[in-house]
């Protein structure tokens, strides 16, 4: 591993002052340290932010929004009573990710910032435009589970986060602070599509630090009909092949408002606005959900040998909508976000 300087600031101000080009923030380290060990990331300076005060709270603000500190661990967030009650699909998505041990370490900020799992990004010997602008993209010929939407010839990677999918559906806002002061970024503008600039993966400017995440008051209005569904290669501890966060507001048997976001299909969690518009005001029926899912994937095109994945993403969206329509279960299933989640008598293996 390349030598680096290790700094443990004790305030946000100190942390921001310690930043310089080539530095990296260290949260739980579950992503950054792996990448450093295999040589895919080589920061000169690692700034441990886990001792910063005031970033570990979960609070409900006076306007009803829920504010989550950047250092809240994924496990703690998932079992928080407010989150489980008001933002059930956020909790379900978190619990479907990684393993218990990893969730205990992973932070909110780190999860928002986690890097793509593209095999070539993780291999320092491969050509990767994201790691090294202009180097080329070895995944173009060999990746078969890559992006369907919003990809470019320069990069076909997907964002692997489960957590970010419901956040995208629920209009989360990310609070950051940097050399230029504090600002807020809407989640839909946070993760970037590759375009001609694949190395730019988020809207975070150099030296900016995520301090918190805020869910607006409207987000909690979907709590009764909100599900996250994740299709994967094994029953637990696997990244999504495709996923969907679906949330409905129901009034008199009709959908008064709808949210739909897809995971593992693009460089960002993919908010499906047209589909949402089709759903609003309609009666919740499978045929409608199928049309909505078709609309969500209308622009999808294979980025390799993955045409089948378009079909899978569509089916995932339909199912997530059906599950949301059926209502949020009283408790998160033992196998969260799983097609096998509703199985009666299943043990909490996940």
């Amino acid at each position, binding site marked *: *591993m*390349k*030598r680096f300087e290790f700094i443990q600031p004790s305030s946000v101000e100190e942390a921001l002052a310690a930043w310089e080009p080539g530095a990296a923030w260290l949260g739980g380290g579950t992503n950054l340290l792996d990448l450093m060990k*295999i*040589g895919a990331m080589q920061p000169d300076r690692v700034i441990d932010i886990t001792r910063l005060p005031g970033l570990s709270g979960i609070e409900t603000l006076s306007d009803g929004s829920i504010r989550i500190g950047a250092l809240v661990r994924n496990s703690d967030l998932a079992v928080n009573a407010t989150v489980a009650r008001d933002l059930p699909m956020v909790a379900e998505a978190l619990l479907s990710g990684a*393993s218990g041990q990893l969730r205990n370490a992973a932070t909110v900020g780190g999860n928002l910032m986690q890097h793509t*799992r593209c*095999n*070539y990004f993780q*291999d320092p*010997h*491969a050509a990767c435009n994201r790691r090294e602008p202009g180097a080329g993209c*070895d995944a173009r*010929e*060999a990746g078969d589970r890559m992006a369907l939407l919003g990809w470019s010839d320069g990069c076909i990677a997907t964002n692997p986060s489960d957590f970010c999918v419901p956040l995208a559906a629920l209009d989360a806002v990310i609070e950051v602070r940097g050399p230029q002061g504090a600002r807020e970024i809407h989640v839909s503008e946070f993760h970037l599509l590759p375009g001609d600039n694949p190395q730019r993966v988020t809207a975070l400017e150099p030296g900016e630090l995520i301090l918190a995440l805020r869910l607006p008051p409207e987000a909690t209005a979907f709590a009764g009909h909100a599900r996250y569904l994740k*299709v*994967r*290669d*094994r*029953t*637990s*501890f*696997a*990244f999504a*092949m495709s996923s969907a966060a679906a949330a409905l507001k129901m009034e008199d048997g009709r959908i008064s408002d709808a949210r739909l976001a897809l995971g593992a299909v693009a460089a960002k969690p993919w908010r499906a606005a047209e589909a949402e518009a089709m759903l609003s005001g309609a009666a919740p029926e499978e045929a409608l959900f199928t049309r909505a899912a078709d609309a969500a994937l209308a622009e999808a095109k294979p980025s390799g040998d993955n045409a*089948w*994945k378009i*079909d*899978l993403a569509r*089916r*995932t969206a*339909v*199912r997530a909508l059906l599950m949301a329509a059926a209502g949020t279960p009283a408790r998160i299933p033992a*196998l969260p976000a*799983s*097609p*096998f989640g*509703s*199985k*009666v008598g299943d*043990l909490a*293996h*996940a």
Partner: protein
Amino acid sequence: MPDTLDPHVRFGSNSGQPVTRRDGLAKVTGTATFAADNTPDNMLYAVFVPAAIARGRVTGLDTEAAAAHPGVTHVLTPQNRPPLQGDPSDKPTMFSFRFEALQDDSVRYAGQPIALVVAETLEAANEGARLLNPKYERLTPRTDIDDAEPYAFEAAGFGLPANTVHGNPEAGHASAAQAIDVTYETAPQYHNAMETHAVVAKWEGDHLTLDMPSQAISMSCAGFAYYFGIPAENVTVRSPYLGGGFGSKAIPTGPYVLAILAARMTGRPVKMMLTRQQMFGPVGHRGQTRQRLRLGADDTGRLTVIDHEGIAATSTFDDFVEPAANASQGIYAAGALRSTHRAVKLDIGTPGPMRAPGEASGSAVLECALDELAEKLGLDPLELRLKNYAETEPGTGKPYSSKALRECYAQGAERFGWNSRPRAPGQMRDEDGLLVGWGMGTAFFPCPMFMAEANATLRADSTAVVETSAVDMGQGAWTALAQIAADSLGLPLDKVDFQAGRSGLPDGGVAGGSGHTATAGGALHAAGGDVIRQLGEIAAADPDSPLYGAGNAGFVARDGRLYVAGDESRSEAYTDILARSGGAEIAGNGSASRAPETAEQHAMNAHGAVFAEVKIDPDLCQMRVTRLVGAFAAGRIINPRLAESQLFGGMIWGISFALHEEARHDHKRGHIVNADLAGYHVPVNADVSGLDVITVHEEDPYVNALGIKGVGEIGITGTVGAIGNAIWHATGKRVRRFPIRIEDLLTS
């Protein structure tokens, strides 16, 4: 003449009991010392640099930068690597492979060691390795089985025939009323035991001490002695605990040799432990196969021919060929049998034995092909197997030493509820609307024995020490072998000091081939028997003993006393016999191997039947094995708890093989893209539910003195096919590749 138990032994006192692992507490509390836990004074760390290309040459290494890094003491490259006394291409022992230890600058597979950095700390060694920054001349790698030329080779697996024919296959094809001709693929699987390969090497003069996980201790000594030009007695291998072996830790590999070389060069102990990524290359793997099965049957379902052809991928520099097609020999009573192997050379590390080598891949495909035939014939899959039940070994006509497969089928089917299975696919749904499918497969594994020796010494206080260099890979040998030893000595388990897991003891043979309990256990049994025989002679000749003159009747040894066989009122404690005879210890020894005449006269196999239930989401195609019932007949079961866990482990590997494990090559660059455990999947707890094992009673008077057949590998066989067949039964879709993935169901 069949082998029989030494008549003094009362099995059941220890053997047959579900004793918990004697090393369990040490393992769960972290006090068990695995190889890499050893940190002798003055130790250095070694790290090898894996090749980033799959074929070509290393043209540059920045050795200056690496050597200049603080803490780095040595950098080994092909230019300066000291000579070995034995050629790495030679095969000094049965389990030797040609290995890559910096002989030259060529690269033959991605992950091959191309340099070694030795340093005062692991971090410095790692950074030195990074600073070497290799430059390559690249040649187009060949990693795709479709692009490679077949080549001629002599043997499949370890010395197995490449081609075997019984009867007339052409006639079998010609006379078939129904036939199928199907081709399946199995993926390369890479060794990933929980403990990665590790060694701490220390030289004292020309004596070498190795703390390393080894499945074959005396063979390791002989192998390393050969490469380093010293007598085998000069090599000490200490291997008290292993975090899994599965075949890969029976073999001296290049990284080990380099670490030992570094220790000799530096005059200091050297530790090397492979990273997870480094496991994907130099330490063996289960070779990729493509298998074609042509089956013919008459109208009633009797097989006229099983024609099994396997193409296996091997490396360019050695020739282990996965003996998959042999899995069709010896199992079903077909009119004709043909097993043919072909092989292609690819730019990959050499494959080697992995748990049930040949049988796992071959049985997976054979059992699916039979299912396809059953469908065509309109027969229940179990019925088809029963119609072709082999009463004697097909081809040779030899009687089986024992075979309770019929009972396995019956008990497994009963426990599973197989009789209510609808024949047509796609008929069953659960309460959540998930597709449900049931499938089955026959499990089958030969019972080889190696050669082992053991000593036993009974002490005056009626305790004993027994010794053999047997190995506990995690399978429970420390416990099961000690149980055998205790019974053979007629002592409670806690009176026996069981010494194993290192060299310098009588040769305990190889923990492999599912034959370790039979072989090392047989030697321990014989050694204990030798002690008891001597003890009986002393007592029978001693006028002061209640056993005086009873020699002809024979004795039974139990709980530290000798009893006259048939007259339990006459007995005496060992302590009394020994005290009167001067209090000396009694030492015995024994050995075990397969008796050649019984092997010639009998076919010897363990058998079983596995039944699987899968559930599949009808739209999303995500799959889950929800129930597995395996009924196995494997001779005498020494420890039911440990045997069950071995069978569970095999069946779980069956899930892994059927649904998860696959090393994916990027054929353009030739490397494995998913070389870590986030990308290379094995089942997690949530993938394993409803495991059920039945051990079917079986007495085998021929297989060996103890009647043991072995349970280490058979669990995989049968299971993979059962799962594949269940997936077909749930969906009506026949996926002819393993692992079966979501996209395979979506697109078929």
